[in-house]
């Protein structure tokens, strides 16, 4: 499989008046895992949001599974098969845990079923009738990740999924991502936690000032460690 799942060209993006992305280019083939690395405020989350059309204005080209989406409304982009896990988690207070989990509509077949998900995150099973925002910080993080696994989306945009999770869970998430990848999912990962990302990704993009300033292939990690260190302060 070498179809392109996501192709971003000359992407620019704005929040109101502030111009955040200044021409971002990258592409992800089917079944690849890539990460976006960078300092706080570099614009990584903004890249994910812009792909889904969640910023106030955008320019350039974004092809999702071969379809140009720059002019589409958010919900139609999502229906092309994108699953999004936002950094602020976005758990709904007025829905209970299970309703939160069942909320995102299926966009295609082949999603995990609920049993499988509960098995993966036993905490959620235990708290399934509790209002979504009454979960602990980490549980909410799990829920945000879990709910998109159900939808059958093949392109996952994951923003800081390890944030605030216990080391065991982080480890488990690493296994999940590997598993997903083996199943043929395409994943764009925004990570602060470099060690977590390093082992998983085919390729790393370093974002700075709203542009991609460096690409590091998995095989080049050792060689470019110094360079990465300079960008990220690892």
């Amino acid at each position: 499989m070498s179809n392109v799942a996501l192709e971003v060209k000359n992407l620019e993006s704005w929040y109101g008046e502030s111009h955040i992305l200044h021409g971002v280019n990258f592409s992800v083939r089917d079944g690849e895992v890539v990460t976006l690395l960078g300092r706080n405020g570099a614009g990584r989350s903004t890249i994910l949001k812009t792909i889904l059309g969640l910023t106030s204005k955008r320019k350039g080209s974004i092809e999702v599974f071969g379809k140009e989406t720059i002019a589409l409304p958010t919900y139609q982009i999502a229906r092309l098969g994108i699953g999004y896990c936002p950094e602020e988690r976005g758990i709904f207070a007025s829905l209970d845990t299970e309703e939160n989990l069942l909320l995102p509509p299926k966009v295609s077949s082949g999603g995990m079923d609920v049993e499988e998900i509960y098995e993966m995150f036993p905490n959620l099973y235990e708290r399934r009738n509790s209002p979504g925002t009454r979960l602990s910080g980490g549980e909410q993080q799990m829920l945000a990740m879990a709910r998109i696994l159900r939808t059958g989306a093949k392109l996952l945009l994951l923003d800081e999924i390890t944030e605030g999770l216990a080391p065991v869970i982080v480890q488990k998430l690493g296994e999940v991502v590997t598993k997903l990848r083996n199943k043929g999912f395409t994943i764009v990962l925004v990570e602060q936690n470099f060690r977590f990302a390093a082992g998983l990704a085919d390729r790393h993009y370093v974002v700075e000032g709203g542009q991609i300033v460096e690409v590091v292939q998995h095989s080049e990690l050792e060689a470019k460690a110094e360079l990465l260190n300079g960008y990220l302060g690892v």
Partner: protein
Amino acid sequence: MQEIILETIGLGKSFKGFSAVTDVNLKVTRGTIHALIGPNGAGKTTCFNLLTKFLEPTSGQILFNGFDITKEAPAEIARRGIIRSFQISAVFPHLTVLENVRVALQRGLGTEFFFWKSGSSLNVLNDRALELLHEVGLEEFAHKETLNLAYGRKRALEIATTLAMEPELMLLDEPTQGMGHEDVDHVTRLIDRVAKGRTILMVEHNMKVIASIANKITVLQRGSVLAEGSYQEVSSNPLVVEAYMGSHGGDAL
């Protein structure tokens, strides 16, 4: 002076039948950095909420310097010198950075209800506020609107504000969450620095931080204490490894 600054006896909290915290007996020693860790949903934040009375305990007692403070209101507890930070950043976004700190200092003046007094009477606090900002490295932003600060700086500001209260006991809930590596190191050093002369109780998932500054660690699991001890002791406890740290150990992170 008491050796033990904070003690909980049989502390418990349940939400509609779900027991989030059960029979927690915690002893925090004066002058230490005490870390509270545990898997997600173990009840750490709930514990903090109980200690600061943002939640009402269903059972148990809280002693601060030997006094029973179980029945006191949140503001009273704050006045006793227990100050917390929040898991989600808590600043006053439309005040300037300086004003943020000053609001905390202001309580010391005892003029908080003086609606007839000129605002310039607060200027006497500016020096102390700048000093605190200097301590967390935010001096140059003193007159900026807080809203526009980067995330890591907001966390630093929060610590400065908390320090302004001259707390005997600081409760920090995941102070480094969401920070880049640089910021994490920065804040870790900051905590270590301000810990001199006070006591800190903190929740943290970043093992690197814990390992480098915590004197004592309590591990919670499912609402009760699983293990307690130094980092060495805890991290070699197989129960803790299984429930929390995972096979890589905290080290991997």
